[in-house]
Structures are given as structure tokens and as C-alpha cells.
């Protein structure tokens, strides 16, 4: 399946403009063949070439957008089985399930609270999944309108009854909800509805072979913004199905599975549900629908999502600039750390909880942690001196004492020499800061 790099190259302009982000057309063609980029990145490609390259140049997994504006969620467009091979791009969306038999307005209000701040990052719960549990079309429509009124975040509308779906989806079509689902029984009408409203459509199979057939039928009807559900609900089988869908799309360029996949939790206990959802999030679901809706239940899951979808090649950095934590005075202590964001925010959190205002000076180590930076020669007395000078710390405090991370106590001498400041060796772990601060600065 698919074309070779050279076959693709023949269709490209061969002008080597570099506008696609690759140095040459040949390099771009090779990347296309490997599924690592998409043809749209080339602004110069001819219409004929686009046609000719067609499916071969399409990304292995289509990018599907649900919702509109700032809160729209992008699913799919992944290229890897393992994050260490490159990275994962589009974090698994989490949808909280609400039934149209509940107090929808109240549930949506609570849903709005499911946003979190942690280590300088903001995590959101992405979508509301509204289920037509009542079986009543009017009720479903009214509930969809209540969700739309209560949140700008996108919706998954859940009903296999085309009439009910039509009533609800038409009312909230402007928000581009995901319609769930086209099945073997209803796919013609459901696909026509999704196409008419311009909404993405979930396709629910009865196992993978059935799903594959059904996707081909839906695509023949002209709709391509699809999300796949194998129909399995048992943890082990869902893991297997999600793995097959990802492998077939990425390794075999199997077109019927070239769409993001979704999964539903089946557990009633919210704790067990979080663990189950975590499995699907780890292994390839683009969207997980779950019932758990408390802060303490979603925060761990969203934190794992953040971890998993970081770029393994690029440590996240903070600006290497002195930060005042709390109401600092000229007597406030000065803590040295690095600009690796995880390190920095852990230190900041602990300084904050020490309740003793202080300066934190993150030395520019290209975003690596204290010990690694020390080993790499990036955290040195000279580097600390540069950071102190750059932020003009001498004018901000009336003392010349700095706190060095305990793990690099060995830098004490060279730091005192380079900076002219006195060194206090702090705790090894940031968690020791509150105790350390109380003992020394209270």
C-alpha cells in the first residue's frame, strides 16, 4: 500500500523552496512516504499532483476536529506506536458522560469546574458526552440546548436513534458536536445527517472486522470526519482493539482505520473507571468517554495525559528570570534552581508552602534538572554568577547569601568564588524546603 518516496517526489515541484519545513523536495517526499508529514505543508503542489498522490500522501490517521473556536478539540493525526520513537501529538480528549434524564444544567455547571492548575500548566476536561437515556427526542434536544447554554466546550451526542439525533444535533449543530454513532442498522441516515450538518461522526462496529466494513460504507457515502469505536467494552479487548487500529493505520496505512479511535469506560466505581480510562489513554484512544466527574478523580488522569503527550526530545522550560514568591523584602532568601519547568515549579510550590517569601533564581540550563545540569557542566559557579548578575539580585536584596540545591553542594566553593556570595546548602529534595526555610529564615 502507499507510494514510495521517489514516486511521490516525481509529483512534487522539485523547487526546494523549503517552505514545507524540509530542506529539499526529496526530503519532504521521503517524510510523506513515511507518514511523518502531510501534503498540505507544501504550498506549491499542483492540483493534479494532489489528486494523484491522494490517499498515499494523507497522514496515517486523519485529524478530526470536534467543536469550534478556542475550545475545539483535535483528535488523531498521530504517527507513532511509542512516544520514544518521536512523540504523540494530540492529547486524548476526555468527555464526561451526562444523561438527558439528569439535571443537565446542574451537571454542566459542575463540569465547568473540572479545570486544574498544576506545575504552571492548566488542564481542562475537554467535552460533555450527552446520552439520550430517556429515549425521548424532545428531551434529548432540550438537554443538548442546556449543555450548549452551559459550556462552550464541545459535545458528543449519544443516540443510535436517528430521529432523536436529528432533533438534538440540528439544534446545536453550530457547535460541531460529534454524533455517536453510525451503526450497521442506521448508518445511511446517520451519515446523511452528519454530512448535512457538517458534524464529525462516530462509527460503532461490532468488533474490528465489522467496524472496517462499516467505515468503508460510510466513506462511500462521502463522509470522512470519523471517529472509530470497535464496540468492545472489556478492558483487555478494548486495549487489543485500540492497538490494532493504531498499528493498522500507522504501519500498514490501512485506510478504513485511518481515523482517531474512541473508548468508553464500563466500570461503575469511579476509581476503577479512572484506572480503566488510563489504560485507554495510554494506548491510543483519541477520546475516552467516562462517568467519573470529581476533581480528585480527573486530576490524576489529566496529569498522566500531560506527561504522556510531552515531547521526549524537548524538556519544558521556564524563562530563566528571577521570580519573587510572596511579598518579598530586601531580607528575603534567594534560592537557586534550574529552568527545567518541572524542577522550577516543584521548587516554587515548596517555597510557597513554606510561607516565607523568597526569590527563586532559575539558572538557564537549557531546561535540564539540577543533577543532570551539574553533570553536563551547565550548572556551575559561573552560570549562577551570570544569573545573579542578569537579574541584578544585588539590588533586590540587602544580603549576599544564596541557597544552593543540596544535590550540588559540591559547587559551594566554586560558587562562592565566582559570585562573591555566601552559599548555604539547601535540602536535596524540594520537599525539604519548608522545614529548611522555617529553621533558617523564620
Amino acid at each position, binding site marked *: 500500500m502507499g507510494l514510495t518516496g521517489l514516486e511521490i517526489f516525481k509529483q512534487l515541484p522539485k523547487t526546494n523552496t523549503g517552505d514545507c519545513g524540509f530542506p529539499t523536495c526529496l526530503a519532504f517526499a521521503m517524510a510523506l512516504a513515511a507518514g511523518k508529514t502531510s501534503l498540505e505543508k507544501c504550498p506549491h503542489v499542483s492540483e493534479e499532483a494532489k489528486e494523484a498522490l491522494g490517499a498515499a500522501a494523507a497522514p496515517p490517521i486523519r485529524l478530526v476536529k470536534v467543536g469550534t473556536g478556542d475550545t475545539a478539540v483535535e483528535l488523531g493525526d498521530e504517527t507513532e506506536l*511509542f*512516544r*520514544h520513537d518521536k512523540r504523540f501529538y494530540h492529547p486524548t480528549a476526555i468527555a464526561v458522560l451526562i444523561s438527558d434524564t439528569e439535571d443537565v444544567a446542574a451537571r454542566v455547571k459542575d463540569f465547568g469546574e473540572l479545570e*486544574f*492548575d*498544576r*506545575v504552571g500548566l492548566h488542564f481542562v476536561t475537554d467535552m460533555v458526552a450527552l446520552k439520550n437515556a430517556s429515549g425521548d427526542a424532545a428531551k434529548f434536544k432540550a438537554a443538548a440546548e442546556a449543555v450548549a447554554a452551559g459550556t462552550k466546550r464541545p459535545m458528543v451526542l449519544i443516540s443510535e436513534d436517528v430521529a432523536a439525533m436529528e432533533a438534538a444535533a440540528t439544534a446545536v449543530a453550530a457547535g460541531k458536536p460529534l454524533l455517536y454513532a453510525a451503526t450497521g442498522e442506521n448508518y445511511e441516515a446517520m451519515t446523511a445527517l452528519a454530512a448535512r450538518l457538517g458534524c464529525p461522526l462516530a462509527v460503532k462496529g461490532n468488533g*474490528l*472486522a465489522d*467496524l*472496517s*466494513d462499516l467505515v*468503508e460504507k460510510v466513506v462511500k457515502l462521502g463522509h470522512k470526519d470519523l471517529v472509530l469505536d470497535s464496540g468492545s467494552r*472489556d*478492558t*483487555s*479487548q478494548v*486495549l*487489543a482493539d485500540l*492497538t*490494532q487500529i493504531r*498499528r*493498522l493505520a500507522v*504501519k*500498514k496505512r*490501512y*485506510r*478504513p482505520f485511518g481515523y482517531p479511535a474512541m473508548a468508553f469506560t464500563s466500570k461503575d466505581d469511579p*476509581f*476503577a473507571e*479512572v*484506572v*480503566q480510562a*488510563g*489504560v485507554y489513554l*495510554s*494506548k491510543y484512544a483519541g477520546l475516552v468517554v467516562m462517568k467519573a466527574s*470529581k*476533581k*480528585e*478523580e480527573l*486530576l*490524576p*488522569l489529566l*496529569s*498522566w495525559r*500531560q*506527561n*504522556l503527550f*510531552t515531547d*521526549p526530545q524537548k524538556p519544558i522550560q521556564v524563562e530563566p528570570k528571577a521570580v519573587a514568591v510572596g511579598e518579598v523584602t530586601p531580607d528575603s532568601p534567594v534560592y537557586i534552581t534550574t529552568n527545567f519547568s*518541572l524542577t522550577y515549579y*516543584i521548587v516554587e*510550590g*515548596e517555597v510557597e*508552602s513554606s510561607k516565607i517569601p523568597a526569590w527563586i533564581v532559575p539558572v538557564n540550563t537549557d531546561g535540564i534538572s539540577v543533577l543532570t545540569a551539574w553533570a553536563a557542566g551547565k550548572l556551575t559557579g559561573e552560570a549562577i554568577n551570570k544569573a545573579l548578575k542578569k537579574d541584578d539580585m544585588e539590588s533586590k536584596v540587602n544580603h549576599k547569601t544564596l541557597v544552593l540545591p543540596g544535590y550540588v553542594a559540591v559547587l559551594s566553593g566554586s560558587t562562592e568564588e565566582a559570585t562573591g556570595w555566601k552559599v548555604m546548602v539547601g535540602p536535596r*529534595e524540594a*520537599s525539604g524546603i519548608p522545614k529548611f526555610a522555617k529553621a533558617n529564615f523564620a
Partner: protein
Amino acid sequence: MAFTPVKDKYRSKVGEVTLGATREQGGTRAYTITVGGEATLPFLHFEGEIPNRPVVALEVWDVAPADWNPCFEPFYGDVYNNPAAWAKKCVEEFGADLVVLRLRGADPDVKDASPEDCAKVVKDVLAAVGCPLVVLGCGKAEKDNQIMPAVAEAAAGENLLLGVAEQENYKSLTAACMVHKHNIIAQSPIDINICKQLNILITEMNLPPNRIVIDPTIAALGYGLEYGYSIMERARNGALGGDSMLAMPMIGNVGYEVWRVKEANASAAEYPGWGEQEARGILWEATTAMALLQAGMDIVVMRHPKAAGLIKQNIDELMVKTSYEG
């Protein structure tokens, strides 16, 4: 187009390690536990054999922990000062597959327990439970080199899992495992090359690969969990690809890492945006364990009984066979 499942072919599989020894085998354990042996990636039953399920261990200390979250009090408060009773509770009440005994009290800054004291605690715990036992030192190399040989000798025949060996300090523990026939934990600092190198060094001392368990070092969720996750995934891929020096089962100290972080411990009053503390801590631990199981961990060392229960249930579900035949 028709759907044909992709079944990857692997050159090799993970080696098996058996922990514990029954009376017939020269020990006193009621049963043994075998880990490893996977011929595919985690829980992908459709393409390869997974002969042994991952196991869940609970952590027991030889001294009452001074700084554990108060939420552990209702579970362990009555046994904090009695490691044998504590271990028994972990197995009988909380369903642990095995027990990890951490000799925290040997630390010169804690209680500076002597090698004889440590050996006695190990014997007491062995007498109290029938499960295989893992014993960890206090983490200070110099002291561990004194206590671990004494522990190995006192428990000769029990086929313990002893830890940890590190690149800079592996000889003494390896020798103790050789002489008294125990298994070893080879710990590397989130570095696959050191992981491999350490296994080579240990096997060069003639401890066979089927007596080694890898601890690639893990961090808690939110504190670099993804690094350990990727190292485990790479090690497991390496094992299946035929690299015999990565083909050992893996262990992770999940509870120990998780219950050091703020997200597990901070009260809802301190962080109202994060929800209720104990539930959050349990799920912080369970989520960390869940992720590492997906990366190939075989022995999950946990702390909160409810988190351990959730993970046992998750393993049960993931061990359900899948197939795309017929």
C-alpha cells in the same frame, strides 16, 4: 479491503524469575511466585503468550514511619511497630501477592539497626507470612553492604529478592545472592545503557540472568513518570527484540515515590482546586501503577491498600485473553 490483524513477530521473550522457595525446595514459603516470561508487549494476548500475571506487593517497614500521611493510620496504625504483624495484614487483609520489607531502620540517621537486628526482622516476617519476600536496604550503600549479607545468610534457602544493586555498588550484594541463592534487584537511574551495563556486570560475576529483576527507577505521576514509562517500553521492546541483557522482569517502587509528592498528600483545604486528599492520593498511586503496567512492569510495589486493590482488579481484567481468530 478486509481487516487482517497485525501480529508482530518477536525474536525473543522476557526471561522468567521465580521468587520464594517451598519446603521441598529448601525454604519455608507456602507458595512461589514466577514473574516475566512475556512473549509480547503488555497484555497483547492476541500475538503472544503471557504466562505469568504481574504481581502487586505491599510495602512494610522495619520501623514505624515518621512521616506517612495520616490516611494510612486506619490501615497500618496498629501494626506500625510490628513488621511481622504488618506483613501478615498486608497479605491476609489487603490481598498483597507478596511483601516488600524496607529496612529503613538500618539508616544511621534513623535507628542505625545492626545487621543482626535486620536479619531478625527478616526472619520474623518470614515466620509471619507464607508469601515470597523482597528485602530492600536503607539506601545508604555503606550500611547496606553490612546488613544485606547478614540478611542473605539468615534467610538462606528462602530464595528472596534482595535490593538494590547499583552500578557503583553491586559486588557485595551479588556475592551475597550467589552464596545464599537469592535473586537481585539491579537498579539503574532512568538510563537504559546503565541498566544493560549493570546486568552485564552482575552476570559476569556468574549470577545467572534468571535471578535478576530490573528496577529502571521510576518517578511519580507528574514528576517525570513519562521518563520511567519510556525506559520500560524501550527495555521491553529490547527484550522482545533479542537483547538478553534487557530481558529481565521489571519492578517499580510506586507507593514509595507517589506518597512523597504533594498531589498525594496535600489537604483539600490547602488546594481546593484538586479535590479530596485521600481519594486523590489513592488515584495518584493507582494511575502511576496503571501506566507502568502498560509499559511492562512485572512487580508493582504499592502502599495504599485501596490503590493496590484497584491495580489487582486492573491486572485481572487485562489478563483476560484476546484473540482475533475465528
